[in-house]
């Protein structure tokens, strides 16, 4: 076992931080470490928090961390912020609202940028979750802005997914309906002191009653909670509801480890294959400049894009077969 693996298991912050960076930067050697770490994963409980910008997710996460710490549980937080599609840069500011925990050794907070890679976000986040899991964190909270398929996929790697809304979001609730309603295990109406909280509650209730088919046997109907995260109101209830959902999942899984049930493993594996495949193919194509050449060729009318695609893909797959 490599020293990096040992250090992660021992909870070494620097090693964990660097490993997550390697995952994010897609350093090839990282896979060996992840392989070795896998046996040490499966103990943590993963909670996904998602919702539109400005609904107060980071503040809610900050309070949740505080509560878990009072319960003596250790916590890992992965806060995902979008990468600018124009510059490739990102300002990662979720941490600001959680900085009070920075001196607490029982809390590890990491900001991640979406980096806009093809489905790679969810893969790297999943791997980062594995690392925090192997590090021994009891709870891992993943916070994302709930837009785009990538982020929905991230949320799917959580056992309990919390969708945060605020009163008076009318159109945004429609957006949730179109996108991530079905992945929500519970809903939080934050800033519930604001006007329209009851209306939002009723709208959500209606939408869940109509459209929710995630748990067909009807055993878990997503509850809707009200909270004012800034004042630490409703957070205790949120944590209790998460525990109820956890108990429900445990019963439903008949004693299997939550992170390692068959469905989850299948989903993770498919996700891994997808992301790996795209990565390898694109890497290969850009490494020897073949993608650029093909683009020029199409541009100059020397070839049509369909033929270019066939040729590129076939030759790449052949080359990769030798490599892998």
């Amino acid at each position, binding site marked *: 076992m490599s020293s990096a693996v040992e250090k992660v298991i021992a909870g070494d*912050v*620097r090693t964990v*931080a*660097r490993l*997550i*960076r390697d995952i*994010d*930067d*897609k*350093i*090839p050697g990282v896979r060996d470490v992840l392989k070795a770490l896998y046996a040490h994963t499966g103990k943590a409980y993963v909670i996904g928090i998602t919702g539109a910008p400005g609904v107060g997710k980071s503040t809610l996460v900050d309070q949740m961390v505080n509560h878990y710490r009072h319960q003596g549980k250790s916590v890992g937080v992965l806060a995902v912020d979008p*990468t*600018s599609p124009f*510059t*490739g*840069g*990102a*300002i*990662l*500011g979720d*941490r*600001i*609202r959680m*900085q009070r925990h*920075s*001196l607490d050794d029982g809390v*590890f*907070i*990491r*900001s991640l*940028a979406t*980096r806009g890679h093809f489905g790679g976000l969810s893969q790297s986040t999943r791997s980062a979750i594995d690392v925090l899991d192997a590090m021994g964190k009891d709870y891992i909270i993943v916070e994302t802005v709930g837009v785009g398929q990538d982020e929905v996929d991230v949320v799917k790697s959580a056992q309990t997914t919390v969708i945060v809304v605020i009163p008076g979001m009318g159109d945004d609730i429609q957006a949730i309906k179109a996108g991530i309603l079905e992945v929500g295990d519970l809903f939080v109406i934050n800033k519930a002191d604001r006007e329209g909280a009851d209306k939002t509650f009723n709208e959500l209730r209606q939408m869940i009653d109509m459209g929710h088919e995630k748990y067909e046997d009807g055993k878990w109907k997503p509850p809707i909670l009200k909270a004012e995260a800034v004042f630490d109101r409703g957070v205790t209830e949120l944590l209790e509801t998460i525990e109820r959902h956890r108990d429900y999942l445990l019963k439903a899984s008949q004693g299997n480890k939550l992170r390692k049930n068959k469905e989850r493993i299948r989903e993770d594996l498919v996700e891994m294959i997808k992301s790996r495949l795209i990565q390898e193919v694109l*890497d290969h194509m850009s490494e020897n400049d073949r993608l650029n050449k093909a683009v020029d060729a199409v541009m100059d009318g020397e070839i049509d894009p369909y033929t270019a695609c066939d040729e590129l893909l076939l030759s790449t797959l052949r080359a990769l077969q030798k490599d892998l």
Partner: protein
Amino acid sequence: MRDRKLRVMVAKPGLDGHDRGARIIARAFRDAGFEVVYTGLHQTPDSIVKAAIQEDVDMIGLSSLAGAHMYLFPEVVKLLKENGADDIVVVGGGIIPDDDIPKLKAQGIVEIFTPGSKLDDMVGWVKANVKTRTD
């Protein structure tokens, strides 16, 4: 080897709330393609260092406009060393008298940017002088 993305932290140590410069530089770094972890105001050196390690940044940019830089900046460098993270480059900016600059540099603050520094020059400096780690 794939190119690593440069990760930097912009931090305001101490009680001074003048964050115009810090916020502008955070945006400029983002526009230069860096990932910028912004800590917000009123941070202690300790909380900055712990955050920088968890975030695995390549550089910390400290901003101070209220005169406490002679204590706060070196304290960050010292704590990085104590935590085995002195490979993280520390730079500073703000209202720093000329006389203090050599003293700060002697204590491990690699570069100081004073008022009037151009954003592009600062970005250029980071690109030229801050390397992502290679191991």
